[in-house]
Structures are given as structure tokens and as C-alpha cells.
């Protein structure tokens, strides 16, 4: 095959001009490695965002008491949601369930001489379905616990560990703000909460007990988790909830909301927003640096063409057609960019792994490899075609007589 014979001419040239080869490959390696690292980092960041959204629940809408721009949960003292609000939300089309709860942050908790602080939630049994989380051991809060204002609790695993170490907490009594609660169950482990706090350092008690005995908030509800049927409808339903609550709270058009809604989409915006500017910058660097490699390639190839005029003239004299010369030099560029791409992606993956050791989320899938392959091909062709055409367009008689 003629094409293979010419390709082997290109291979030989790459092998014989070691310094030239080294410089071009190095330039491409730097470019592709940079791009690979950036792909791995962005992919990692995206993966983390997706995790956070899944953590929050793509089908969930959180309704917080109190307006303003503050993130994080509301507390019982600012509660302003009513039972009617809950019922009206439940009636909105597409809403699967509403699970109201009371919340008090950093409550002092005691067991014997052990002491810790923990978030305390007053919940109904629906909490389990709303958060897809129940008791991993023992029982959960029941309807009768709520009816009877029972002083029972289900504790998260961090809180359990703080207070009981390795002994079995079930059946023991703990003091929350000097009120004694009997531990009836241990909550499934969850890890991070939607806003990034430890979601295992919490204590669940009956909603009614929390309202009347602990948090002194018998009328209003602090917060509710709304679950919808179709996550795609999240923002539509959120705006319905907003209308409903504004009407219920008799807010004039000029008044601001006295509640807050959080959807998965907003969590995504919040997490992405902080890294957006940096991402744009990173991507610019990532795309520019392989192109700088391409410019180096073109420079050196142009030099090679003018150094090798006699060789080109000779090849033309013994029968090489223009297209053969184009192919020879283009193949040379491609061999160099693919070598650079291969080493570059390896170097990039190693650097990305080093980054991940410092705690940065990375994700290495097929993408960096595909990106490296495509960029190598594009750079080789784009920056290689001009020198190759220049070589082919040399007048054979003139090229032969070069010194």
C-alpha cells in the first residue's frame, strides 16, 4: 500500500528528528494534560453537584418559615406556617405529600454525664416517606406518639455515638433541655444534609411534643417538606405553593414573602453559582493551551519544511505527487499530536489523581480520553495542514536546487 509506505516515511522522520519531535510532543503534552485535568475537575464538580441534588431529593420542595435570603433551616421561634397552609399545599396538583416538622437547632442533650448539642426535629410518621429514611433499629415516631404527646425520640447515629458510645441506646432516657425522652429507635445513616451539615447529628421527637412541650410553638409550623410526583414540574409547583402561601398570609403585592421555598433546581444554582466564574476561566485555559501547542507544532513544522526543501524536491523529482507530500507532512503532524495526546492524557490523569488526594472531587471517565483524542486530531490537522500544503506547493525544480 502506497499510503502505508508514505506513512512509514513520516514515522521515520519523527524518529530521526529527535529534538524536534521532543519539543512538539512536549508542547502538545502540556496542552492535553491541562485539558485532561480540567475535564476531570469539572466532571468531578458536576458529580458532586448531582450528589448534592440527589441528597436533597429532586422531587422535594422545602417550605421554610420566615422570608429573606438566608439559607438553611428556619427555627421554631420564627415559625409562621399554618395547618391550613399545609392542607392547601397538599391540594395542589402534582403534590404527593406534605410532611410538616418543627426544628430547633443546637439543642443541649444529656445522657448521664455525657453532653452534646444536636438538631431536634418534631416530626410526624410521614417524615419517613418524605426523607426516605426511617429507623434502622427499634421503632419510628408513630401517630399515637403524636396524639399522646409522648416523650419518645429516635436518634441519629452521630448523636447516638456521642452519648452512648458503643452501648445500646434503645430503652434509655436522654434529657433534651431538661425534659426526659425515651429512646425508641435509631435513625438510618445519611451523611451530609442538603446544606452540607452532618445529617446524622439529630434527634427526632413527636411533632406535637415538640410544639407544646419543647419549643413552645403550639400554633405555627416551622418547616415542611413537600414531595411531588414529577421532578420536572418542580418549579411550576413551587410557584403554585408561593401563590397559595401569599394568599393565605394576606400579603400585599408590595410585601415580600414571609416564607422561603427551596427546590433541587435552586440547590443546583447555588452550588454552581459559586464555581461558575472559575469554571469559565478554567475552560478557557483548557481550550487555549492545546491550541498554543498547535501553534508550536505549526512553527516547528514550517521550519522543518524550509529545512527539508531539498528532500521535498528530491521526492517530487522521483515521482511524489503533491498529495503524497501533503500526506507525508500531515501524517508527521498527526503522529506527533497523537503521541502528545497519549502522553498528555496520562500525565493529566496522574495530575488529576494528585489533586483528588488533596480532597478535590474528580471524575475520570471516558471523556478525558475522548477529548484528548479529538483535540489531538483537530490540532494535528488544523495546524499541520498549512505546513504540509506549503511543502507540497514548492516548485520541485526550485526546491531541488536549494542549498
Amino acid at each position, binding site marked *: 500500500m*502506497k499510503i502505508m*509506505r*508514505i506513512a512509514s*516515511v513520516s514515522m*521515520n522522520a519523527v524518529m*530521526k528528528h529527535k529534538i524536534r519531535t521532543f519539543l512538539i510532543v512536549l508542547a502538545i503534552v502540556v496542552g492535553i494534560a491541562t485539558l485532561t485535568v480540567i475535564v476531570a475537575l469539572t466532571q468531578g464538580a458536576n458529580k458532586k453537584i448531582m450528589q448534592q441534588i440527589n441528597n436533597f431529593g429532586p422531587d422535594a420542595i422545602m417550605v421554610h418559615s420566615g422570608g429573606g435570603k438566608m439559607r438553611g433551616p428556619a427555627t421554631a421561634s420564627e415559625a409562621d406556617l399554618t395547618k391550613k397552609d399545609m392542607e392547601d399545599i397538599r391540594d395542589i396538583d402534582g403534590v404527593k405529600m406534605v410532611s410538616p416538622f418543627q426544628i430547633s437547632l443546637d439543642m443541649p442533650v444529656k445522657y448521664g454525664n455525657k453532653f452534646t448539642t444536636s438538631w431536634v426535629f418534631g416530626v410526624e410518621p410521614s417524615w419517613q416517606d418524605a426523607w426516605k429514611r426511617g429507623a434502622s433499629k427499634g421503632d419510628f415516631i408513630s401517630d399515637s406518639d403524636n396524639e399522646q404527646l409522648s416523650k419518645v425520640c429516635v436518634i441519629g447515629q452521630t448523636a447516638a455515638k456521642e452519648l452512648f458510645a458503643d452501648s445500646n441506646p434503645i430503652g434509655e432516657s436522654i434529657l433534651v433541655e431538661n425534659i426526659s425522652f425515651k429512646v425508641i429507635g435509631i435513625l438510618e445513616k445519611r451523611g451530609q444534609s442538603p446544606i452540607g451539615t452532618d445529617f446524622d447529628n439529630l434527634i427526632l421527637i413527636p411533632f406535637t411534643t415538640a410544639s407544646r412541650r419543647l419549643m413552645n410553638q403550639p400554633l405555627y409550623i416551622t418547616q415542611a417538606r413537600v414531595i411531588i410526583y414529577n421532578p420536572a414540574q418542580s418549579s411550576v409547583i413551587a410557584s403554585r405553593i408561593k401563590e397559595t402561601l401569599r394568599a393565605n398570609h394576606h400579603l400585599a403585592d408590595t410585601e415580600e414573602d414571609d416564607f422561603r421555598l427551596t427546590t433541587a433546581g435552586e440547590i443546583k444554582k447555588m452550588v454552581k453559582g459559586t464555581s461558575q466564574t472559575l469554571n469559565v476561566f478554567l475552560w478557557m485555559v483548557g481550550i487555549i493551551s492545546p491550541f498554543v501547542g498547535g501553534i508550536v507544532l505549526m512553527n516547528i513544522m514550517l521550519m522543518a519544511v524550509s529545512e527539508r526543501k*531539498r*528532500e521535498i*524536491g*528530491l*521526492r*517530487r*523529482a*522521483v*515521482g*511524489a*505527487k*503533491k*498529495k*503524497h507530500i501533503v500526506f507525508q507532512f500531515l501524517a508527521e503532524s498527526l503522529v506527533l499530536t497523537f503521541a502528545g495526546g497519549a502522553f498528555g492524557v496520562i500525565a493529566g490523569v496522574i495530575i488529576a489523581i494528585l489533586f483528588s488526594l488533596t480532597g478535590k472531587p474528580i471524575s475520570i471517565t471516558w471523556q478525558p480520553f475522548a477529548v484528548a483524542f479529538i483535540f489531538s486530531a483537530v490540532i494535528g490537522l488544523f495546524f499541520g495542514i498549512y505546513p504540509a500544503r506549503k511543502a507540497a506547493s514548492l*516548485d*520541485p*525544480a526550485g526546491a*531541488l*536546487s536549494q542549498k
Partner: protein
Amino acid sequence: MIEFNDIKKSFTSGAVRTDVLKGVTFKVNKGEFAAIMAPSGTGKTTLLNVLGCLMKASSGSYLFEDQDIETLNDDQLSGIRNKKIGFVFQTFNLLERTSALDNVLLPLVYSDVYPADATKKASRLIESVGLKDRINYKPSELSGGQQQRVAIARALINDPAVILADEPTGNLDSNSAKEIMEIFKTLHKEGRTIIVVTHDINVARSAERIVYLKDGKVEKEEVLK
């Protein structure tokens, strides 16, 4: 086999037009050993480029084995150079850092059929020019005369219709020059057509016939044998 009819070639640089070939007419027959005697400044290089299909004439007709060269396109000219013409240059023009064998094989890279016995054929040619034990030497490891012999072997690899030599002994000492001319004589005896372009009358005298070029025109022809 080769027929130049009133070949003219001029170059334009800006507004200045230079007529280099002013109507060259001559013939070379198959199996002939011809010399074109052209002192420098008489359009020798241009004549050689036109003759070697590296450049087209401005006017006139050039028939090569009854084919009108002036009607061919660039790719077809490359084909002619590849199959029909074996070049031997004054400066040898071997590829650096490339073995004698690979240098001889070079024209085959661009030929449509690559003979199965190419390496064998190349080795035989290198042997026939007396470099059997240097087959893997690189040009830098060979003397001028040896390099020119590799170049001759390269010119023969495609069994060309004509061997076109441009001042083949110009860069050689007199002993090497003599040896090279002997090789040409042998090739001629084997039935090959050879054209040597030179300004050296002693080289020209190895041929059967000399065409004298002067001032862009054929001045006279002289039959020697």
C-alpha cells in the same frame, strides 16, 4: 524517443522578462547515449528541468515516447518522473541518515505497484555499482563517488526509459569521475538510454553524440561514434 520541438522558456520577475530557452530543437533516440554540452549561463538548468518534466516549457512541444508532455497535469508529470525518468544529480541528493538500500528504494515509495522482490532488486543494483558491502551505509559514511553510485542505483530501480544525469561528475575527483562515466558506458551497452547534461567537454565525449547549447539555442550537433 525524446523530441524537443522549438522549446522556449522564459521567466518573468516583476516587469522583467528573461528568455532562457529560445527555441531548442533536438531528438534523442531509444538506446542512445547523448550529451548536452551547455556551459553555464546558456540555460542548462532550465533545459534540464524541462527535460526532466520538473517544469513545463512556455511554448513548443516536448514529446516523450510520443506523449505530449505539455498537455499533462502535475500528477501525470509526477507519474512520468516516477516511471520513465531516472535522475542523477551533481550533488547526489541522497536522503541523509538513510541507508543506501533505503535511498535506492525511494522511488518505489511513490510507484503504483511495489514489486515483491523490491529489496532484492535494490540489493542487486547496489551490487552492480560495486557497493555490495556498503548496502546499509548512510550517505555520510560514503565517499562522493560511492554516493553517486548509490544515486545511479536509485535512478535504475524503476527501470526508467531514460537516465537523465545533470553534471554527474561535477562534485567528484577525476578518478571517481572516470569510474562513474564507466558505469554510464556499461549501462548504455546494456541498452539503456542516457542523457548527460554537462559543461565539461571530457564528460560529453563519453557519449555517442553531443548537442551543443549556446545562448538558449542548439548551436550544433556532433556525432562521435
